């Protein structure tokens, strides 16, 4: 465990080499939030969007923009390139588990983003746009739990994409597709409660909602308290399903690697 935490620590310091990027990220996040808020202001003035206020939508936009920085689906590029270039060999000759190494290394990046992007962006957004407090302490706790689930699910989805790419086609096509699915079905821009009922139903059957809609709605208390448990159970089932698929594919990838040499 200590070994894996070292990976997190090193990945964190590794990112420090790029700290000049921090300003661009802060600016990027600010602009993203600014545009979303402007859109919602225009929309809420014109059409009925249910019982939500502009404050709610502002907070929803801010939470989702910041969450995107923390997610781990970006690891897919790393796995893909190390499988294809064969540098996976160097990882396999070490006495460590490669998937765990990946996860903990990815977390180092997330912690870095949390400290240097999410927290400062949050403060800026709070001062400039205002952020609603969490609906209640219970919802705050649910929100934090949902964030951890979002990390796990985003990691598993990214890992899954890279493993699929190992066999089938190019990783960009798949990552791009994942990106598209995430943009729409996570509800990170358009909350699921604004979807037409059929599509809302579809979105709620997919794992992507945990990477946007679920955490933000828990924070805001949009999801009723009695549904929280059900949502978490669904999340855990998704984690379990993805974990099984990924384990199975990883075993296949390794045995192919060991027989065919990449």
């Amino acid at each position, binding site marked *: 465990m*200590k*070994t894996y935490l*070292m*990976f997190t620590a*090193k990945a964190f*310091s*590794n990112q420090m*080499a*790029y700290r000049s990027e921090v300003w661009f990220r802060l600016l990027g996040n600010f602009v993203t939030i600014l545009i979303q808020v402007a859109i919602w202001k225009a929309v809420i003035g014109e059409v009925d969007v249910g019982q939500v206020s502009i404050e709610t939508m502002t907070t929803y936009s801010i939470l989702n923009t910041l969450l995107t920085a923390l997610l781990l689906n970006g690891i897919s590029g790393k796995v893909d390139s190390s499988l294809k270039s*064969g*540098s996976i*060999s*160097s990882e*396999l*000759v*070490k*006495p*460590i588990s490669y998937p765990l190494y990946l996860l903990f290394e990815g977390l180092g990046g997330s912690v870095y983003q949390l400290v240097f992007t999410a927290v400062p962006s949050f403060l800026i957004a709070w001062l400039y746009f205002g952020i609603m407090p969490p609906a209640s302490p219970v919802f705050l706790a649910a929100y934090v739990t949902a964030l951890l689930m979002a990390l796990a699910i985003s990691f598993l989805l990214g890992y899954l994409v890279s493993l699929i790419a190992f*066999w*089938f*086609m*190019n990783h960009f096509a798949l990552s791009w597709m994942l990106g598209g699915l995430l943009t729409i079905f996570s509800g990170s821009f358009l909350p699921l409660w604004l979807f037409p009922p059929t599509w809302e139903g579809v979105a709620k059957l997919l794992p992507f909602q945990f990477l946007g809609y679920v955490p933000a709605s828990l924070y805001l208390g949009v999801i009723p308290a009695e549904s929280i448990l059900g949502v978490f159970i669904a999340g855990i089932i998704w984690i379990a399903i993805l974990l099984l698929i990924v384990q199975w594919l990883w075993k296949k990838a390794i045995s192919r*690697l*060991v*027989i*065919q*040499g990449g």
Partner: protein
Amino acid sequence: MSIISVSGVTKIYRQYRRFPGIIGSVRSLFTRQYSEEIAVKDITFSIEKGEAVGYLGPNGAGKSTMIKMMTGILLPSAGEVRVLNEIPHKARKNNSQHLGVVFGQRSQLWWDLPVTDSFELHKYIYKISDESYRKNLGFCTELLSLSDFINKPVRQLSLGQRMRVEIAMALLHEPEILFLDEPTIGLDVMAKDQIRQFLRAVNQEKKTTILLTTHDMKDIEEICPRMIIVNKGSLVYDGSVAALRSKLGDERRVVIEFAQDPGSIEISGLTLIKEEGSRKTFLFTRNGTTVFDYVSRIAEKYPIEDVSIEDVDIESIIRRLYKQLAAEDEESQGRQPILVGGAN
């Protein structure tokens, strides 16, 4: 008991046919057409604890494939590999604790972090005690002169510096066997030299068993008393460097740059093999007289600008090995086409 034993090992790569384009990539999913490539062909050898063995062969001879099978990241198609008495593929994690591996063309370092950070991570991965970490780091730092750049980020290192770091890292956990796949590829003469001296010291002082692949004959002469030569997957020689030299005759190439083109010159013992104006290349066979004798004899008659002496490259050694084998084959029909020269 041998620390490494390879018996009758063959590796056949099967490459499924791929079709170009997007439609092609979908088609590739369903095709079962493949071609086979025999990378390693029925190879047998064993290595004792403490040996330093050079695994020599031209590009594509199957050297990396053999290293991968010994480190457990590739399964042989036939035959058996045993390393530290285990099947490497099955005991990969356990064995890895006792192996050091350097892949010359691949870095194991963290690109943006100082060298020391990669070392420290290595310490955790291999659970190295503080004391032996300090001791081993000291040994490597001194002999490889790492202290000049140990605090620099890896991306700022030259290739030679990086390779020294890779080798040092592979030794921090005191492995019993050190595998190096082309550790000197692409390095300048100075860096090559330092690495060779270091590896020799590691083998002699720490008694680490070393197996290194290379296509540079010189690596072997300076580090390894024993060499194994492979070509197109097959083992063609296993024995000492000295035995091979005496077997093949000790040839060297002498390139002389004359002040002016001397026209045709004849000196018995030197064979002219290439002529580019005032620059001439001779083949020299050792026969009691040294190269310098010849050169000074030439220099008495013609002014010389520059002289360089090159060892014969691996390709021509193998070519001559084959010629030799063919000649012996004619003498005694039905002989096994493998030379196993007087080991050590």
